[in-house]
């Protein structure tokens, strides 16, 4: 069998080799996708240290469960799911330690998003992509972790309501409600940021 050309091999080839216990191909996979895994952890946790720890833990878990990877999805999707589950575990742990946020209370009484006037302006017109991303990032940071998580899972990970509900251990109705609230809140925040820029 020819020796694997690790730097030029496809992910699937590296995974197959790593599944046999070879560490070198796995190291290459870590190198290729570590930024994405870290970014996902950071988008959910909004804390650099926690995101770094969780991203590394995800790679450890990935190695330990590598034989379970069947190739039904891409390796990065599989790894991202591991990372998301670890983030959700951590968020749940933190949630148990603190009282409900004001945001969550607003959502539960169903009032806050109704009070928001519907806007029909494009809050990000004439913005560069990098600038837009920074603005979105700022706005995401201001969301509660429940709303941010549901938005990340739906918009960035393209997960369906049912999958999100299962991951977050809540009902589909709650997912829909949180997603609606998060989107509207995000729209308002982006408009505010635009107004601030124009001053």
């Amino acid at each position, binding site marked *: 069998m020819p020796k694997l050309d690790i730097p030029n091999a496809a992910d699937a080839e590296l995974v197959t080799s790593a599944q046999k216990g070879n560490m070198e191909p796995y190291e290459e996979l870590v*190198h290729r996708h570590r930024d994405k895994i870290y970014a996902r952890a950071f988008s959910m946790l909004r804390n650099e240290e926690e995101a770094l720890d969780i991203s590394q833990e995800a790679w450890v878990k990935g190695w330990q469960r590598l034989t379970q990877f069947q190739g039904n999805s891409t390796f990065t999707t599989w790894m991202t799911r591991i990372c998301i589950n670890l983030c959700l575990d951590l968020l749940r742990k933190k949630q148990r330690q603190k009282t409900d946020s004001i945001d969550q209370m607003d959502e539960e009484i169903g009032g806050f998003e109704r009070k928001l006037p519907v806007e029909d302006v494009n809050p990000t017109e004439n913005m560069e992509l990098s600038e837009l991303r920074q603005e979105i990032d700022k706005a995401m940071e201001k969301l509660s972790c429940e709303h941010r998580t549901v938005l990340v899972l739906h918009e960035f990970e393209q997960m369906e309501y049912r999958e999100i509900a299962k991951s977050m251990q809540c009902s589909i109705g709650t997912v*829909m409600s949180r997603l609606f609230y998060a989107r509207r809140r995000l729209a308002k925040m982006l408009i505010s940021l635009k107004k601030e820029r124009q001053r």
Partner: protein
Amino acid sequence: MKKDDRLKIQAFLDDELAPQESVKISDLIDSDLEARTVADELKSVQKLLKNGENELKLEDSRNFYWSQVHRQIEAGNSQLLRQSRPSSSSRMENPLRWILPIGSMAAIVVLMFNFNTVSPKPSNAVIPGDSTGNAASGLTESLGSAMEEEAPSRPEVGVFSFEGIWMNDRNLLESEDPSVLPESIENPER
């Protein structure tokens, strides 16, 4: 507009609504201004987020990051190994672990053997009524009186003492003298 309708508009835009319901909501968006405005707002946020995720890059070098992961993998592996098989140190401890119970058991067996062979009375003791050869008939009475006589210097039958062992050893030595043979040898019928 009801909250339920707003959520349905969102589900319609996310392609999560049943076909029958989708037709109804589509009509609502076409006919109702507020519904259309909500739909437009949601669409614009969807569009923004489509390419709006900030790209982050880890500052740690490849080697440093991997070394952290690798160390945790190795730690996890050794932990798994420890869980799956006994460690070399515990295997070494196994024989030592058995020394105490085996030693104790051996000591108990030796003591029990000695206990059973302890003579209930001194070799030169004379059992009253035994002279007839019918020991069984006056055993209780004769034993009682023999014990009363020996009580100050000798343990009772059935109670272990080191003195008994010592006596037993002496008995074995003395048994070579036919005149002081143990009672059981003197009277095999008993």
